[in-house]
């Protein structure tokens, strides 16, 4: 467990200038936010680090001297029109994109209208992106009503980007509908290097893969942003994760992030930024980088970042017409801690029930009998995730031994699953390979059963079963049933496990 969980007591409106009285910080902070700090909390936890902790930044170093900034600090400085920001400072940040969906949108809209007036207009109709994705294909009346609430608001406000769905019986009949918000944001070109993207969803941190500051906020904060286009944010210190070495062909980004979370625990990055660099990271595709940043929140992280590079720019070609300015950490930037990993030494992992940091080697869990496999979500339901699963099924040539649920994240992913040829298959598509392997038919794109949802949600766990899933959380009850046991894994490991009926290392097949 990390010893330096920066205390949250002053994370809100603690700026002396705004409040007019001195901030009394009670936090056990490594970064002084006022001269009169109260007692530091004595650490009673073991810190698992691989390099020595860097010394804390002294007040004298934060004066008029320009210190190198990490890319997170820089993005926030630019967004708050300041020349310099240091961790611990609060700043009013201009928001480039605010995203909301069907679960938190209605509540955010309610607060916006109550606080700014029934006839108030959002700060910028082109910067609010509204994406129904959570509880879509259900007969739950309230869930359906929530999508209607979004539609009414978008009509009233003339919101430019609303990915609407009306025909719940046939997702393809809805030309605007996308699906899972974090994947849709990327695919529709709303993620741009150097920008600030906030969303009413914890996995908003996914967008950090594009070299931007992206984090999840609640309804009240979102209501505030809707009205003003700004939010008061505290600058997080950065943990740097350096990953070098050639990625073995049985590992995916999911294994990398499970390794990290297992290393630092579910609170190891609380209030911190996680920066991912190194030759391995540079070799990752955008979707893999998204998987990496997606689970930053599972370590408690505020945001994750991967520096933009040619891979990023290539992905963005044709997706966005807005100009962007990539931001990079300065050479003299100060990092709270640095972790180094030699990726070539890693093995496929799972997170055992009931915590994302309950790390174990997949091969050590080979005696765990499973009841089902779920491949989907913003974490593991993208095109490349399905390609990866198909690769394992193709290599095996056998049929799955347990029900295997496939939920493409977006319409585009669904179409890719049905149209893109899988390398080495002689022209077969993922869908054909899945069918031959006996998987369930790929479902309508949405968040699906990743978070359980209404009772009639496809693939919801309604009995106490054991599931290997490519999703992001496995706390009790996450996929529905409180006694359900969820093993988080990569698409490779999930597919391998489906073939044997036990938790299985994908090297059995690839």
């Amino acid at each position, binding site marked *: 467990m990390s010893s330096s969980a920066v*205390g949250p007591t002053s994370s809100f409106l603690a700026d002396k200038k705004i409040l007019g009285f001195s901030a009394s910080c009670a936090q056990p902070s490594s970064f002084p936010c006022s001269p009169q700090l109260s007692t530091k909390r004595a650490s009673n936890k073991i810190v698992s680090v691989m390099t020595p902790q860097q010394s804390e930044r002294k007040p004298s170093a934060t004066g008029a001297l320009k210190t190198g900034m990490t890319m997170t600090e820089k993005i926030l400085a630019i967004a708050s029109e300041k020349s310099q920001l240091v961790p611990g400072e609060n700043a009013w940040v201009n928001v480039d994109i605010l995203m909301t969906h069907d679960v938190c949108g209605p509540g955010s809209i309610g607060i916006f209208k*109550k*606080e700014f007036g029934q006839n108030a207009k959002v700060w910028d109709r082109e910067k609010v992106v509204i994406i129904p994705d959570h509880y879509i294909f259900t007969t739950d009346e309230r869930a359906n009503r929530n999508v209607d*609430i979004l539609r009414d608001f978008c009509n009233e406000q003339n919101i430019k980007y609303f990915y609407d769905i009306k025909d719940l019986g046939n997702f393809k009949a809805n030309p605007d509908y996308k699906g899972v918000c974090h994947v849709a944001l990327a695919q529709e070109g709303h993620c741009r290097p150097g920008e600030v993207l906030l969303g009413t969803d914890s996995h908003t941190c996914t967008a950090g893969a594009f070299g931007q500051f992206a984090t999840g906020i*609640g309804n009240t904060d979102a209501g*505030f942003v809707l009205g003003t286009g700004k939010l008061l944010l505290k600058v997080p210190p950065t943990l740097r994760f350096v990953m070098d070495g050639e990625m073995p062909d049985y590992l995916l980004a999911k294994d990398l992030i499970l390794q990290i979370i297992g290393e630092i625990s579910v609170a190891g990055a609380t209030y911190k930024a996680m920066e991912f660099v190194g030759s391995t990271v540079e070799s990752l595709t955008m979707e893999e980088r998204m998987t990496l940043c997606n689970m930053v929140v599972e370590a408690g992280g505020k945001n994750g970042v991967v520096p933009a590079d040619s891979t990023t720019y290539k992905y963005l070609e044709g997706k966005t017409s807005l100009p962007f300015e990539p931001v990079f950490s300065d050479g003299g930037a100060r990092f709270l801690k640095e972790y180094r990993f030699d990726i070539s030494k890693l093995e496929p992992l799972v997170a055992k029930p009931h915590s994302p940091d309950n790390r174990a080697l997949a091969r050590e869990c080979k005696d765990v009998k499973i009841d089902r496999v779920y491949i989907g979500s913003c974490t593991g339901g993208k095109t490349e995730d399905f390609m990866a699963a198909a690769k394992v099924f193709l290599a095996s040539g056998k049929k799955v031994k347990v029900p295997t649920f496939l939920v493409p994240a977006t319409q585009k992913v669904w179409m890719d699953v049905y149209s893109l040829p899988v390398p080495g298959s002689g022209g077969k598509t993922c869908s054909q390979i899945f069918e031959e392997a006996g998987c369930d038919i790929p479902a309508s794109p949405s968040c699906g059963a990743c978070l359980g949802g209404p009772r009639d949600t496809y693939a919801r766990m309604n009995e106490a079963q054991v599931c290997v899933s490519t999703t992001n959380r496995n706390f009790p009850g996450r996929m529905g049933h409180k006694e359900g046991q969820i093993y988080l894994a990569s698409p490779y490991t999930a597919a391998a496990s489906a073939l044997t009926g036990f938790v299985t290392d994908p090297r059995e097949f690839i």
Partner: protein
Amino acid sequence: MAAISTVTPPTFNLSSPSRNPNSASLSSLKLASPDANPSIPSSRSLKLHRNSRFVTAAATSPSAASPAANPTNTFHGLCYVVGDNIDTDQIIPAEYLTLVPSNPDEYEKLGSYALIGLPSTYESRFVEPGATKTKYTIVIGGDNFGCGSSREHAPVALGAAGVAAVVAESYARIFFRNSVATGEIYPLESEGRLCDECTTGDVVTIELGESKLINHTTGKEYKLKPIGDAGPVIEAGGIFAYARKAGMIPSRDA
């Protein structure tokens, strides 16, 4: 109540006036006054409802704080003890997220489901079946309370159920931020593991001003970390109410 000086926040421009005629610099941000929408109870009135209940409890309980104690600074009642990493799915399972917190009826319903996601190893239910309020005013937790989702429904469900404060060893950041922004509950930090020291059903008092928790059942006292700047925000009823009260944001009728 501490005097809050009216300070002019830093001025800056929001969106260009031509595109959005209702925009303004934050210093002159026009917000609706709380009474503009009588159908939606302001968070302030919801909070006062809870506070008045505390005054009653403090007055009738034999071991209550002195009658001169400020009711908004003293919380008294039974505590409910949970462990580490209580995530948002345990606080309010995802199937209940179709309830919209800004809708008063659904706000109450959310309260009835608070902590319903806890495993069956927890023998006492936090909210009795059929009830919308809990008999436990204070939740005591371990590390990383509120981890998981950004759903604001989590602190809202606890507040709607009648929780005055959570006392945990540490918090996940979005949960903490949402608690302050909504003003629903005080997210207090303990020094050490109170979850090991207290048992569900213990009678406790929290003296906010003194950053102290008293367990009347065991007779022990514990130091809490001061709530700091988050305190006035929660006391006012959340960030919008606080901003109005502090003069950062004038009301439309001003």
